[in-house]
């Protein structure tokens, strides 16, 4: 029994040390960027686990493809071909417009380039912390992804990359309570900032003047201010406007256009060199 006491004391000291270490680590992680290296290395080790976890979904997708019948594939092929033709036609028009736009911009002396470089990535997993809205994607620094790159799906902006290692990266969604994105109303040109509020289908625009020209159904695009997000990508659509008569502001709720909770294929957009201040 005598032996028990020194050991217990030892554990207490050890625990005390570890507890203070945790507190210091949290403080450093919150205030500075030094722990990014640790995070990136540990998540590198975790990358195989993430692949393993997403394996069932991948298998189901693969099996679906394998088992879908001949006629299904033929039908799909017809639809896709039609889609392809329509898109091609649009693209031709786009190319003309783009050329024209570039010419006009050149005439104006603007250095902004139009074509953004994109990387196609797939969703690996959704972070399970109920207080955050983070997703893991399967592209990392090896594929050219870097901190701050915007992530979009076919419908609009999803978020931006906040942690990255060689093979995977973490994206914070625009609906995360800690995220804010500079936006602009297409119709009126009013600029604002859209805050996430933790629920996947809502963004909040605070402190808009009560006189601002906003209507339900207005579309929001990125304004490109701040340099993080490329300009003119669709972000959200206004779903409600709450006027508070006691204060001079309105609070506007908008629904993100990107399918934040269901998109599996995403695109990582490298910001244009012409407009990024960094």
């Amino acid at each position, binding site marked *: 029994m005598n032996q028990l006491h020194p050991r*217990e004391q030892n*554990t*207490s000291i*050890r*625990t005390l040390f*570890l*507890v203070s*270490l*945790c*507190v*210091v*680590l*949290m403080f*450093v*992680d*919150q205030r500075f960027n030094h*722990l990014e290296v*640790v*995070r990136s290395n*540990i*998540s590198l*080790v*975790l990358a195989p*686990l*993430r692949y*393993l*976890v*997403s394996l069932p*979904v991948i298998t189901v997708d693969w099996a679906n493809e394998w088992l879908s019948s001949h006629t299904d594939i033929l039908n799909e092929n017809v639809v896709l071909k039609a889609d392809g033709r329509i898109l091609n036609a649009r693209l031709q028009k786009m190319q003309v417009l783009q050329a024209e736009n570039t010419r006009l911009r050149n005439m104006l002396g603007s250095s902004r380039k139009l074509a953004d470089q994109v990387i196609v990535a797939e969703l690996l*997993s*959704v*972070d*399970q*912390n*109920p*207080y*955050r809205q*983070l997703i893991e994607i399967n592209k990392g620094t090896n594929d050219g992804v870097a901190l701050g790159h915007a992530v979009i799906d076919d419908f609009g902006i999803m978020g931006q990359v906040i*942690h990255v290692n060689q093979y995977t990266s*973490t994206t914070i969604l625009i609906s995360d*309570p*800690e995220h804010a994105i500079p936006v602009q109303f297409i119709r009126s040109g009013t600029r604002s900032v859209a805050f996430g509020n*933790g629920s*996947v289908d809502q963004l909040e625009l605070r402190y808009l003047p009560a006189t601002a020209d906003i209507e339900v159904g207005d579309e929001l695009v990125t304004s490109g201010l701040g340099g993080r997000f490329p300009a003119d990508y669709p972000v959200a659509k206004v779903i409600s406007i709450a006027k508070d008569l006691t204060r001079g502001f309105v609070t506007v709720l908008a629904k993100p256009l990107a399918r934040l*909770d269901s998109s599996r294929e995403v695109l990582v957009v490298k910001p244009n060199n012409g407009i990024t201040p960094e």
Partner: protein
Amino acid sequence: MLNLRYFVIFLSLLVGLILMILPLPEPVQVYRPHWVALILIYWNMALPDRVGPWIAFIIGIIVDTSQGTLIGQHALALVIIIYINQNFHQRIRVMSLVQQAIYVFGLLVISQVIIVWVEGIMGRPPPILAFFGAPFVGMLIWPWVFIMLRDIRRKASIN
């Protein structure tokens, strides 16, 4: 059989980690029990000399990375509950499974309080359901975790 022992412990914790990053439908997510904490509590109870605060700390850092929380947040919670558990392990071992489960609920609530507290300091409002939901589910599955890990430990004759 030193290697086998650590291998089994490591493997069980790995399974716990996988269970914690496994995608679940949104509404069920807040009820996900803290698998890693349950498994750590078991190993600490069975082998307090081998699985102690240090391992809890390392695993905690890994959980933090996988969950996108602050580095040290889960680690702090795990270190503290493992410390409490280490002081009680002899009494807990002889309890019935039901009593054990209630005790584990207490530990999980403590860990939850620490995690939510840190979130609160950083100004993120924690959802109420997540608070007691996850420890409650943890309490319900504790007997199964206990029996399964005990059988594994006996089969592998880890003492």
